[in-house]
């Protein structure tokens, strides 16, 4: 470097590091209401108002009846209650906003109020709530009490064997609904058959949908394969709606058509759809979504899938966009719609943004926390990657455990997963054989059972699937044929499960708002109504449900930690012996350094948290001291297990006044007789990353201090590991063993240490 011409920095290098983080792959867009980029304050968002003449609405949200577009017409005729609308609209928005977060105002009162509020008014009310208030209000206003979840089951090859195995796996984790779609649209029938068999493995009640073209989706439903639909999309501007090739009336017709076939359905809408489609009318995300939701209630749909959906990543690029998504979900439940609350399309590359996005929903609960949790790996998701995916499913389970929050899922052990996957592929193979659709080999089945994703399978390819799918369709195979095939081949349980699912449509109970199946029963907003009215009310985790949620795999127990120490003990007894010589006294020689070992050191505990055998650690400390020409003395203390006091006690028995204190877990300190307990010379506090060479140097430094030399302190380099997260649970269990062995009055012991191979 040229010292004479100082280099003027042109950048703080932290920015370069930030540039490399996944976050910087995300787009962020400036507020630009003129071009539709505004979460809640669109350039053309109308002021809420209403005018009724002769029992007819003549002005709504600043538009006269003569200028109503088709959406205005639909809302004015079918959403608004003309009898109450004038009075309700006269209420100040701030007052209604307060009611939403007031636990003393019942949900039912607020739902009634919503029937007299226009889209602009609804939007104005929820826009007044902070993110926390939105989350709280959502928790109070959602229709069904028990929360649930929905997952995607797809793969990159449309392989039916993988679909059946992955569907069964999703069912095992607890998804209330699973949803598939195809890479190749003609594969729809094969996907549907495979998923509906998978959904019948292990338990019954998981509803299933096959997202495809409207007419085909309804036909697949009529053949009994699928039990719900949610592709009935609704848009907030007339032009976007028409570009989507529908009108409120055509969608309402489809809604009734699904009812007439006994198939559960919900609509789809969500922020930024109109912005993506280029017809936003300079209106905000929230206002346009309010229009969508009023229409959905007016159509008589029982529910909605909203909260961004495909537009979520665009919404998340806008300031306040994530808060807006929460606000639109609140609007949905306020309008008494079942809400599959988005958390669907992956809205960021940043895992921190992902975790933050899900949390409010997890703790407030939702009819379906995700309207598409990727139960499969990201690359297998034919809807595109979800907010959470197969890769991150365990993180979701742990978040449930952290917050004791029911996200609808629960951990499943490895043996059970293997079991349901094997059972699933066998069941589908039987159906394929019975219905002459194919005969998958053992090799195909095994490759699928073990596979995490389709890259690992040697099974059906999309072209094979197209032929299977065509056969199912053209031969008019129905769910009854599948049930028969299962029963004939001994899969009676799966046959019963599938029959139970199809029988749901005979009574139509599951067409009511927010219906899911739990333990063989339909629960919905009717018989499981959210009755939140303050702490202790609403949904509460039962003791049994809590047990299911918290039992993630590989939890530490005291017994397991002790058992592990036992195996170390066997190794250590061949390496070292500790023999008490006498009670320890203050030494006279100024060339000695006392190493004070803790009560359990080498007796009950045998390795540091850095996984080094204590015999080796002690050998290195001693070698370091000896290398400086000094003499190590080993003293075992019984009155304390604390590092500082071990060190100070050792120093006070040391002729040189220098002592080392070391705990069995490897934490060590160099102390001087004249120092205060916590004012030591050197400390190794991060035992898990402390290596043998560090202990060696530590011994050498103790020797230097004894000789009156100031050495370079030993610095154990850290790379920022979350050491507490990695080790503290084990440390606490180990340290409790140390402290349980302490005895206040017991004197220190002079220890003779004999290493294997030494005389």
């Amino acid at each position, binding site marked *: 470097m040229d010292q004479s011409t100082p280099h003027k920095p042109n950048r703080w290098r932290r920015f370069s590091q930030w540039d490399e983080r996944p976050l910087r792959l995300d787009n962020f867009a400036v507020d630009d209401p003129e071009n539709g980029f505004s979460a809640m304050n669109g350039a053309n968002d109308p002021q809420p108002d209403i005018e009724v003449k002769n029992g007819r609405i003549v002005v709504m949200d600043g538009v006269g009846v003569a200028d109503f577009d*088709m959406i205005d017409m*639909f809302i004015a005729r079918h959403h608004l209650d003309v009898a109450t609308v004038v009075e309700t609209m006269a209420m100040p928005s701030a007052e209604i906003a307060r009611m939403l977060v007031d636990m003393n105002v019942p949900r039912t009162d607020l739902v009634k109020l919503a029937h007299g509020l226009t889209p602009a008014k609804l939007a104005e009310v929820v826009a007044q709530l902070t993110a926390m208030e939105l989350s709280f209000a959502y928790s109070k206003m959602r229709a069904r009490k028990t929360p649930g979840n929905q997952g995607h089951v797809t793969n990159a090859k449309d392989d039916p064997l993988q679909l059946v195995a992955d569907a069964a796996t999703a069912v095992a984790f607890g998804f209330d609904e699973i949803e598939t779609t195809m890479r190749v649209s003609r594969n729809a029938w094969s996907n549907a058959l495979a998923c509906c068999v998978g959904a019948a493995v292990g338990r019954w009640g998981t509803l299933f949908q096959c997202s495809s073209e409207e007419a085909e989706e309804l036909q697949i439903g009529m053949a009994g394969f699928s039990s719900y639909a949610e592709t009935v999309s609704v848009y907030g501007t007339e032009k976007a709606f028409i570009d989507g090739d*529908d009108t409120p009336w055509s969608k309402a017709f489809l*809604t009734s058509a699904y*009812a007439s076939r006994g198939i559960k359905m919900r609509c789809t809408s969500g922020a930024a759809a109109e912005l993506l489609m280029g017809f936003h009318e300079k209106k905000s995300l929230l206002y346009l979504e309010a229009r969508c939701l009023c229409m959905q209630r007016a159509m008589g*749909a029982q529910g909605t899938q909203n909260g961004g959906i495909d537009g979520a990543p665009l919404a998340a690029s806008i300031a306040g966009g994530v808060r807006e998504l929460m606000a639109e979900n609140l609007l949905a439940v306020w309008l008494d719609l079942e809400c599959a609350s988005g958390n669907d399309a992956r809205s960021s590359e940043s895992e921190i943004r992902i975790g933050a996005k899900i949390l409010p929903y997890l703790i407030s609960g939702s009819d379906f926390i995700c309207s598409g949790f990727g139960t499969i790996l990201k690359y297998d998701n034919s809807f595109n990657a979800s907010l959470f995916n197969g890769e991150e499913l365990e993180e979701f389970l742990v978040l449930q455990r952290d917050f004791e929050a029911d996200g609808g899922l629960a951990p499943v052990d490895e043996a059970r997963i293997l079991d349901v996957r094997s059972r699933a592929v066998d069941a589908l193979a039987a159906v394929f054989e019975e219905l002459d659709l194919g005969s998958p080999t053992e090799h195909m089945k095994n490759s699928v059972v073990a596979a995490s994703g389709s890259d690992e399978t040697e099974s059906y390819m999309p072209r094979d699937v197209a032929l299977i799918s065509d056969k199912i369709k053209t031969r008019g195979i129905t769910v009854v044929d599948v049930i028969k095939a299962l029963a004939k081949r001994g899969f009676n349980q799966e046959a019963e499960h599938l029959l139970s699912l199809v029988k749901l449509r005979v009574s139509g109970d599951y*067409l009511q708002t927010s219906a899911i199946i739990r333990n063989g029963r339909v629960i919905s907003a009717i018989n499981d109504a959210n009755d939140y009215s303050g702490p202790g009310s609403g949904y509460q985790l039962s003791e049994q449900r809590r047990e299911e949620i918290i039992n993630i795999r590989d939890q530490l127990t005291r017994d397991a930690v002790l058992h592990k120490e036992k195996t170390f003990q066997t190794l250590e007894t061949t390496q070292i012996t500790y023999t008490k010589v006498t009670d320890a006294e203050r030494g006279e020689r100024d060339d000695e350094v006392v190493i004070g070992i803790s009560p359990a050191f080498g007796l009950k505990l045998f390795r540091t948290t850095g996984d080094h055998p204590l015999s080796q650690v002690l050998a290195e400390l001693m070698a370091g001291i000896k290398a400086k020409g000094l003499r190590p003395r080993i003293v075992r203390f019984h009155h304390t297990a604390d590092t500082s006091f071990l060190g100070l006690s050792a120093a006070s028995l040391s002729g040189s006044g220098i002592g080392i204190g070391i705990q069995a877990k490897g934490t060590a300190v160099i102390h001087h007789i004249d120092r205060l307990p916590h004012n030591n010379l050197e400390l190794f506090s991060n035992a898990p990353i402390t290596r043998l060479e560090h202990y060696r140097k530590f011994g050498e430094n103790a020797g230097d201090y004894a000789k009156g030399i100031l050495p370079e302190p030993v610095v154990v380099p850290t790379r920022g590991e979350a050491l507490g997260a990695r080790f503290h649970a084990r440390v606490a269990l180990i340290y409790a063993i140390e402290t349980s062995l302490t005895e206040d009055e017991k004197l220190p012991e002079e220890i003779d240490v004999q290493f294997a191979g030494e005389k």
Partner: protein
Amino acid sequence: MDDEKLEAQDYPLAEMRRDLVRGRRGKSLDQLDLAAVENGDVVMEDLKITARALELQAKIARTGNREKLAENFERGAELVEVPQDYLMEIYELLRPGRARDKHVLEKVAENLRATYNANHMARFIEEAAEVYEARGLFASRF
């Protein structure tokens, strides 16, 4: 329509009022078992919803103050007997630009009323025809 009185406690009907639930060919829920499927006594037709079930669900919906949902169930009840092809044909005609004038939709409404006694749905389609005309939605799109 029947005059069966229902309360929220009657829900789920398949549990609380099994007596009211019948398949399309009159079978009770208990008769719709696996053995019957295996020996061919139960076919797809038995597993379809009936207009009556939808009317009963409309009543249940009203106990929860869900008028719009109830109306949808009632429109659905009117479509139960409409064949699939005709159902999809009507849906197609309701999409923008498919019907070229309101008479096409009015004819559909008339037929629904005459053939299936689908009064609510017919009224709904007539309303669509009126709105489509006002908003120019009969213009060709492809």
